[in-house]
């Protein structure tokens, strides 16, 4: 199935990518991270276990075991620093 992925702030800059649509064969957010980590380089580095980042599905923050629905908007970003 397809997912629309958005990247923000430091991750957007390091990946050199603000958004992409990709074909996803897994189930959860963890599966998506594995798929992205497999690209190697900055992807493996920034999305490694223990690195601080957040995942939102359809604009709500979710846990890593969240199931990703078809055509979901999935955003990956660093911990927020507004205010």
């Amino acid at each position, binding site marked *: 199935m397809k997912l629309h992925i958005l990247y*923000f*702030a430091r991750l957007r800059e390091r990946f050199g990518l603000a958004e992409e649509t990709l074909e996803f064969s897994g189930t959860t957010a963890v599966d998506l991270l594995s798929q992205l980590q497999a690209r190697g380089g900055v992807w493996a580095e920034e999305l490694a276990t223990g690195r601080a980042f957040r995942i939102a599905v359809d604009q*709500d923050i979710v846990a890593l075991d969240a199931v990703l629905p078809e055509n979901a908007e999935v955003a990956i970003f660093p911990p927020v620093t507004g*205010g």
Partner: protein
Amino acid sequence: MKIRVQTEAFDLGAEVDSIRRERTDIGAIASFVGLARDINEGSGVAAMTLEHYPGMTEKALAAIVAEAGQRWPLQDVTVIHRVGRLLPGDPIVLVVVAGAHRGEAFAACEFLMDYLKTRAPFWKKEKTPQGDRWVEARASDDAAAERWN
């Protein structure tokens, strides 16, 4: 309730007047204004750029305001957060809370800022003499939000 994400500056007095206008049931208005500083983590900051996640930002702010409304009997709330390029001294964020009494106005104002800082998708990038850098999230902000649980 008013929630706005904008590049322009805001006017605290005008926002307070807007909440008070044609009402006489409000007993207390508490407000908070966050400002861009010229120093952070020991380095001079010449400017900062605020990025956000359009769509989620407004949704997250509305959820935070709704949660405050469930915890305290509030009469009105305004939240304005700026994005884009800001200079030291520029106002970044405004929270105005109106209630019948000061207790709920003070408490809800602090709660809104604590939750905004840890849940609303904004990111700051600072321009320093050592180069541009993304601001790192602080554990003290997480602790401040956690105390409301």
